[in-house]
C-alpha cells in the first residue's frame, strides 16, 4: 500500500520535488522561509502552519521571505513569471487578496489576452482559506468563487492529499496564473500519496462515490462533509453520488451533467457565502442544461450571507454540516 502522508506534507513535497526538478521554481511570501521564534535556519518554521518548512535549507536562495506587503510581492512574482521564472507566491490567508486585486485580476489574468497570446504568466498563488479555526471574519473566508469569476485565472481547490500534490505540480507546470487554495482544516488529513512526481489535470472532476439517487457536488473540505452525510444516508437506503470538481476553473461540467442526468437530483455543497457562489453557479448550469432530467428542485447547502462568526457556537452553525447536507439530500429524494 502506498505511503500515507498529510495534506500539508503533500504540498511541501510537491514544492520540494518541483524545485529540485526545475531551477526556475521559486517560493516567496511572508514567513515562508523563517517564521517567528525560530532560532536558526535549519529548524525554521516555514509559513504560518509550517507548510514550507525545510525548503529554505534544501533550496538555498530560492525561498524568499518578503515584507508584509502582498501587493508588492504578488506583483513581483507575476513580473518574475513574465520573465521566465515559475514563482509560487504564498498569500497566507486568502482573505488578504483584496490588497492585490489589481496585480491578480487586472495584470496576471489579462497578460496573455492583452498581448495577443505572446505573454505567458506561469505564476502560482497559494493561500489558506476556510472557516473552523476561530480565526474570525478576516481570516476565515472561502473566496474561490471570486477568482473563478475572472477569465484568465485557473482555480484549484484540492480536497485530499493525493489531489493536493498532483494538482500543485500541475499548477507549477501550467503556463497561466493559477490560484491554489488550501483549506486549513485539511492540513492534517492523511491519505495515500505516491512518492514519485505525478500530475492531476485541471478540469477533471473526481467521482468520489457512486450512487443512483442524488448527486452531491462539493468543494474542498465540503467533500469530506458530503462523504460523512452519504455514509449515513446509505444506511437509510439513499445512495448518493459525490462529485468533487477539484478545479472551479476550468470546471468539468460534463461529469456534473452526466451524473444529474442519471440521478435527477442535485445538492451543491459550498462553504462560501451563498450569493454569486459556486453553488449558485452549478445550480444555474444544471437548471439550464439538464432541466429535463430533474425530478426535484436543486438544493444549495452553503454558508450564510454574513461574515464568518468568531463565536464557537455560531461558527459551527455557519459551516455546512453533514447533518444539513443529509437533510437537503432527503428533501430532494422525498420531493413529490
Amino acid at each position, binding site marked *: 500500500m502506498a505511503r500515507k502522508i498529510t495534506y500539508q506534507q503533500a504540498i511541501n513535497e510537491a514544492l520540494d520535488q518541483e524545485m529540485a526538478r526545475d531551477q526556475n521554481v521559486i517560493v516567496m511570501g511572508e514567513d515562508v522561509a523563517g517564521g517567528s521564534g525560530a532560532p536558526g535556519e535549519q529548524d525554521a518554521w516555514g509559513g504560518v502552519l509550517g507548510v514550507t518548512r525545510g525548503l529554505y535549507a534544501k533550496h538555498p536562495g530560492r525561498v524568499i521571505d518578503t515584507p508584509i506587503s502582498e501587493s508588492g510581492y504578488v506583483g513581483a512574482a507575476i513580473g518574475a513569471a513574465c520573465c521566465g521564472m515559475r514563482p509560487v507566491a504564498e498569500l497566507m490567508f486568502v482573505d488578504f487578496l483584496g490588497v492585490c486585486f489589481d496585480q491578480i485580476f487586472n495584470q496576471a489574468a489579462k497578460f496573455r489576452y492583452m498581448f495577443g497570446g505572446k505573454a505567458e504568466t506561469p505564476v502560482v498563488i497559494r493561500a489558506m482559506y476556510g472557516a473552523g479555526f476561530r480565526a474570525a471574519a478576516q481570516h476565515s473566508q472561502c473566496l474561490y468563487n471570486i477568482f473563478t469569476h475572472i477569465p484568465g485565472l485557473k482555480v484549484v481547490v484540492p480536497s485530499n492529499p493525493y489531489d493536493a500534490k498532483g494538482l500543485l505540480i500541475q499548477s507549477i507546470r501550467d503556463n497561466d496564473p493559477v490560484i491554489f487554495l488550501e483549506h486549513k482544516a485539511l492540513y492534517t488529513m492523511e491519505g495515500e500519496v*505516491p512518492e*514519485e512526481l*505525478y500530475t492531476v489535470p485541471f478540469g477533471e472532476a473526481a467521482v468520489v462515490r457512486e450512487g443512483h439517487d442524488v448527486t452531491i457536488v462539493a468543494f474542498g473540505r465540503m467533500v469530506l462533509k458530503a462523504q460523512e452525510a452519504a455514509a449515513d444516508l446509505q444506511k437509510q*437506503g439513499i445512495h448518493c453520488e459525490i462529485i468533487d470538481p477539484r478545479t472551479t476553473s476550468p470546471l468539468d461540467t460534463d461529469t456534473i451533467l452526466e451524473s444529474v442526468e442519471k440521478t435527477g437530483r442535485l445538492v451543491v455543497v459550498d462553504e462560501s457565502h451563498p450569493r454569486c457562489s459556486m453553488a449558485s453557479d452549478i445550480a444555474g448550469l444544471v437548471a439550464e442544461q439538464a432541466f429535463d432530467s430533474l425530478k426535484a428542485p436543486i438544493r444549495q447547502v452553503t454558508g450564510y450571507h454574513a461574515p464568518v462568526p468568531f463565536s464557537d457556537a455560531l461558527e459551527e452553525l455557519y459551516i455546512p454540516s453533514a447533518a444539513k447536507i443529509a437533510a437537503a439530500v432527503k428533501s430532494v429524494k422525498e420531493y413529490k
Partner: protein
Amino acid sequence: MSAIQTITMPKWGLSMQEGKVNGWLKQVGDAVEQGQEIVEVESEKIAGAVEAGATGVLRRQLANEEDVLPVGGLLGVIADASVSDADIDAFVADFLSNFKPADGEEEDQGPTTQKIEVNGHKLRYLKRGEGGEPMLLIHGFGGDLNNWLFNHEALAADREVYALDLPGHGESTKDVGEGNLAALADTVAAFLDAVGVASAHLVGHSMGGAVSLTVALRHPAKVRSLSLIGSAGLGNEINTGYIQGFVSAANRNALKPLLADLFADSSLVTRQLVDDLLKYKRLEGVGEALSTLSGNLFADGRQNSVMADQLAALGKPVLVIWGEEDRIIPVAHAHAVSGKVQVEVLGNRGHMVQMEAANDVNRAIARFVG
C-alpha cells in the same frame, strides 16, 4: 459436518475494509457444496463471489443486497439440515455480539509490501505464506501485484508466494532500461536471488507469462514450473487496439471502455479500478515505460516474441490457463499448445481470468504444482 459454518465478508487486497453485497446466488434452504459460489460481493476495487467453506444447507442470509459489511462481517450461515434453528440463532447472536471489525488503522493489517534493490531497480513485492516450494506471481502489461488479490493468499496456503511489481509498474522503479523481455527476465531472476529463493514455480499473466517463459529460457535453474495465464509469448496475435489505447489513454472516459476488454463481464470494471489505473498512468516515467515496452514487445500490431515451439525443450512442467472469451490474446494460443502441455480453458471468462474465475484458477495451479 456437524458444526455451523460461517460465510463472512472476504478481504480482497490489503486496502479492503468493507464490501457490499451484490446479490445471493443461493437462497435459504438450498443445499450447497464446498467450493460453490454462494454470494456476490463487491469491494471498492473489484467484484467477485464468495465460496461455501463447507457442504451443507444455507440456513441464514444475514445481509441483504446493497448492504455494506466490514471485512469479517457475517454474511450467512451454512449447517446441516439436522442442526436446530435455535442452535443457529444462538450461534448467530454469539457471533454478532463478539464480532469487532478491524478499525483499519494500526491493528493487524496482515502482510505488507516491501521494497528491495535489484539490478539498480527498486522493486516492490509482497510475500505471503511460509515454507514449501516457493512461488512467484508475475503480472502483465500495465498491471501490478494487486492483479493477484484473489489468488495470492489462497496459493500461499502451504508455501511462500511472492508477487512483485515489474520495473515500470506499480510502485517499482519506472525506468525499464532496455525494456525488453530479456531485461525483465534478468530482473526477475535477480529478484529471486535477492529474496533468497533458489528456484520457484513461476505464475505469469499475459506479458508476465512471456517474462516467465523468458526466465525459464535464460535462467532454467531458477524455474521449477510455469503456469501461464492468458499468456503472451505463445502466438503472434494480440489486441493492439487495447495496448495502444492503454498507453495513450489520458482520462477516465478514454480508459474505461478499454478496460471492459479485459473481462468477459465488463461490469467488473469499477470506478475505483479505472481511477487506480489512471493514478498509475499519471506517475512520472510510466508513459515512457509503457511506450518502450509496447514498442519492443508488441510492435507492428504483433507479439514479437513467440516461444511456443520451445516449450518442450524447456523440460519443465507447464500449465496453460485461458479465459475462453479473452479479447486481448486469443484463446487459440492455448488450443495450439494443447496436447504438448496441460491446458485449462475456462468458459465465459476473459483476459483477467485469474480475477474472474479466481477459485478455478487457484485450484488448477494448486493441483498442478502439487
